[in-house]
């Protein structure tokens, strides 16, 4: 079930909201848990079992970690259990494909559909056991509450990846009030509008461009496609995060922000601090820092320090950590080489910035502009790699973008963009800067301003609903004869 589907918007959401608001406090968690399981089972009921198994593994694992001394082994086993599912459903066929290609093998692929949201809830589950291992939180004795943390439907399918230590207190004790509900509804509408009105409109343009054969695209069209996709992915993902945060607020949770205007960044390092914050911070907290620490404490580190000096050894540690983290980041996004290349590409620029000091803020306006142009250029190119089906297509696409190759275009730009798409693109560019960042704030605002914002949100909701309804319009037309 998608947040932007009619069934969610006009059936599931109002019923769950009403039930959640009406039932007694002690029943609210159960309402949410049942709703979350129903939400997940809607698309593919079979995979509920996988999710429930993950919950049980982590519930038992965390309790054992807190009880016994062999914590590391237990942690490793629990994480292996979590990653085992992820590997089987998401990566098995990728490995088979590559092994077959490398060794000319004939290993059969498994016929399996990836359970929705498995990457997200697996990472959440790992965050829980690691937090328990680090003794940052107590293990959750109530399996229903742990199940609620892992299955909570607002963030189940597309994040944000909520770390257990951030919401442990809220699961135990949270308040639901209408102020939060009002904020949540508003935030949800903003997210819905981002997704439906901007992302979907720009997505249609990007799809049209990226489905053309590469020899039928020219320089301008490729840039158009790349820019539209860059904004589509931002509004799609941040819209979904806004909806998740809004829904969380309606149900009394406060999730951390997942996006913070990434396209105003002046370096790739800054960009990744603003883009998919929950994933970035997850990799930082649970992979980069532990790995760097482990490498620093390892025996080869000391011997290398003696041989080549501490500075160079530290650089080497950073390189290794960055490679592992960005390889994993890319791989997490999808089981394809283009995602891995995309991840390493980002890691490469971050490393470059660290080494050259490029990520330091420039004082001059011109310097900041150059930094910004550089960042956007790197980001746009990274999304071309991300969007392309194959690395070969991405390569030729980039060559066409920069005028090295030249295809013969079949259509004028009007085939791709009309007024609506141009408006969506302009709105998308303008709203990617924090011009109306505090639109939803009510503290210290005049009644008139709040009323105007509410009216605007109401209009956005109706427009989004109209757009969703229009997607259900499917005429069957006889044209021939």
């Amino acid at each position, binding site marked *: 079930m998608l947040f932007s589907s009619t069934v969610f918007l006009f059936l599931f959401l109002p019923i769950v909201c009403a039930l959640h608001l009406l039932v007694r406090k002690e029943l609210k968690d159960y309402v949410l848990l049942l709703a979350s399981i129903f939400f997940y089972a809607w698309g593919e009921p079979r995979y509920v079992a996988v999710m429930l198994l993950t919950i049980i593994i982590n519930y038992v694992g965390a309790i054992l970690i807190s009880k016994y001394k062999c914590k590391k082994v237990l942690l490793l086993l629990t994480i292996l259990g979590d990653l085992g599912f992820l590997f089987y459903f998401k990566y098995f066929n990728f490995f088979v494909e590559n092994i077959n290609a490398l060794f000319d093998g004939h290993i059969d692929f498994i016929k399996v559909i990836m359970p929705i949201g498995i990457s997200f809830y697996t990472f959440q589950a790992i965050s829980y056991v690691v937090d328990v291992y680090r003794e940052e939180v107590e293990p959750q004795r109530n399996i229903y509450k742990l199940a609620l943390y892992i299955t909570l439907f607002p963030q189940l399918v597309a994040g944000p990846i909520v770390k257990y230590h951030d919401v442990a207190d809220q699961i135990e004790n949270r308040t639901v009030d*209408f102020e939060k509900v009002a904020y949540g509804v508003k935030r949800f509408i903003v997210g819905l509008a981002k997704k439906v009105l901007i992302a979907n409109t720009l997505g249609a343009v990007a799809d049209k461009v990226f489905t053309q054969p590469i020899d039928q695209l020219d320089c301008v069209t490729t840039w158009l496609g790349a820019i539209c996709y860059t904004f589509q992915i931002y509004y799609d993902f941040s819209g979904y995060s806004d909806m998740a945060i809004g829904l969380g607020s309606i149900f009394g949770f406060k999730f951390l922000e997942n996006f913070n205007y990434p396209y105003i960044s002046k370096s790739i390092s800054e960009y990744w601090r603003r883009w998919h914050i929950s994933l970035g911070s997850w990799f930082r907290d649970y992979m980069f820092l532990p790995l760097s620490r482990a490498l620093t404490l390892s025996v080869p580190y000391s011997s290398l320090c003696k041989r080549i000096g501490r500075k160079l050894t530290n650089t080497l540690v950073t390189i290794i950590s960055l490679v592992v983290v960005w390889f994993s980041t890319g791989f997490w996004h999808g089981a394809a080489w283009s995602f891995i290349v995309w991840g390493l590409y980002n890691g490469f620029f971050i490393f470059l910035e660290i080494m050259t000091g490029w990520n330091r803020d420039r004082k001059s306006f011109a310097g900041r502009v150059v930094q910004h142009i550089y960042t956007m250029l790197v980001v746009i190119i990274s999304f071309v790699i991300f969007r392309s089906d194959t690395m070969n297509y991405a390569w030729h696409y980039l060559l066409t973008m920069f005028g090295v190759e030249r295809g013969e275009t079949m259509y004028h730009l009007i085939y791709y963009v009309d007024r609506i798409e141009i408006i969506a693109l302009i709105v998308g560019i303008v709203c990617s800067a924090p011009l109306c960042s505090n639109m939803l704030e009510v503290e210290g605002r005049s009644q008139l301003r709040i009323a105007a914002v509410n009216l605007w949100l109401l209009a956005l909701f109706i427009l989004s609903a109209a757009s969703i309804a229009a997607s259900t319009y499917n005429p*069957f037309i006889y044209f021939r004869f």
Partner: protein
Amino acid sequence: MGKKRIWGIALLTIFVNILCLPLWTKCGYSGFIRSLFNKEARLDLLYSGQITKNEPLSIKLTPNPFFATWVYEPGSNIHRINQSLRTRGKWQKLSLQLKALRDGKITILFRGPDVHDEYGIPIPCLIDWRNVKINGKTILTKRRAFSFIKPFANRLWVKKGDILHIEAEFRRHHFFVHDFTQLKSGMVWYVITGNLLFFFLVYRLLSYIQGGGIRRIDALFLAIIFPMLFIPMIGISDAVKSERENRMLAVNPKLEDLFKERTDYGRRYENWFNDHFCGRIALIKLHDTIRNQLSRVIRAQKAVYFKKDSWLFELPLVVNMDNSPTFYQSIVRNLIQLNQFCQRNKIKLYVLEVPRKENVYGEFLKKEYGFDEKKFLQVSQAHEFIRNETEKHHIPYIYPCKALLDAAKSDFVFFKWTNHWTDWGAFVGYCELMKEISKEFPDMPVVSLNDFQKSQNWLIRDLYDESFAFTWRHLYWFLNYEDVTDSPNRAFYSYYDHNNRAKMAFKVERFIKEFSYTEGRRRVMLMGTSQNENLNHFLPYSAAQTKYVRLNMGQAKTADEFKILKLYKKDILAFKPDILILSISTENLSRLRDLCSIK
């Protein structure tokens, strides 16, 4: 919370219920609103008995002097009058005097107007009727509301010379609580749950406002948003088919399917909900209106519409044809086989291929859409091959694309909104065809435009040729125009009527038309698609007898329509034409492989 507040909320709930009443009745909001502003009542008379061409009853109506004429319905074997009556909020009197001219049975129907919703489902738009008297005898005293589907019906036997005095009063229906009798099935559940939810939500909201937990302005915001979320589910449509979309709507999956393996229940339920939720069409209309206002080019699923010049082209712009030599060869082999059959029966075969609008207006497409003409190359190669091969076997193959390109400079050769050629375009095609025919048959007269009266009108083929079920109306709906009359396309087209129509006899039998013209000499059989409708304005004046068989609307399923030798062999041999013209549009070229079923 005090009792006063609870009573207040209960009253509010009742008030909201009254507001939502139309949602729960079979009228729906559309019927409710339609009834509120309705200006029409209906009085229908049906006569069954001795059926002749003459009217069965003479009628005198007061106060309305005009009365609709009798229409004979061959299917049900009755004479019918559908009389619209103007209505207002006040009671109006109706007085009608009928005199029977023959014996028979008459049915008098007091009803509401015949209106339909966007799905094509009749809306029960109600009209109040009272004091209905027939020959002084009261048959309805108190006010009762009747719709078109559920009218107040009276049947009487009449003898020749009988006079009937009918009196009645009617007005626009005013909604009252008794309309609850029209509750939709399954609505009780929604009413109960909806009321309970509404009551408790308002109760909780008010307690928060009282406790200072929320700003009033935000409370108002939530009070608007939450009901909006509930409306789509409480007014679910019962419709089975959407006329506007020309398709059956998704069916609600059975709950027991949920427990079956690989059930797909969620997706099927979503499809059903997507098709039926309340307000769907209104939201789609809003979306399309905004889109149509903002766009220069509207790209629909199957067509692209250039708003600036009102040109509409079918998608894909290029016919996807198999480019393999075997494909072309099979077309040629079928034509040769048909030609051999014709030669055996002393019939001369001509093939006329009507070009696509996109081929003729390629320049426009290139200018406005950047469309590359090279894409037509594949089609051109197909023509070249087929033409060369047919020439080798002495089968004249006419493809009037060049002539149409020249003719397009002086007038429209294709309609802007449909893929059919105009009368002018058809005349150009006719001339090209006759050029070829006159080589073999110099005695066949060729009409010139001087033989015709030219008129200008903005009517397009959809209105011009009303007898076809497959109209472009669906396309107007697709682009959110109710009908062709709403469309911004106001181009004027030229129409041609022959000066000597009196010399032409015309007979229609389903989708076969026969023309006889006194000055013609040869017998022509024309077989082809809808493009030939316009061709028939000219071609029958060159032949003594013309028989036109509409292939794609004929006696077989669409897949078999072009199996000429299988389906029409007897017809051809019975008619014994001198000339057989096979006319086909470019998009149907591949269907030529069906002619003699040679693959």
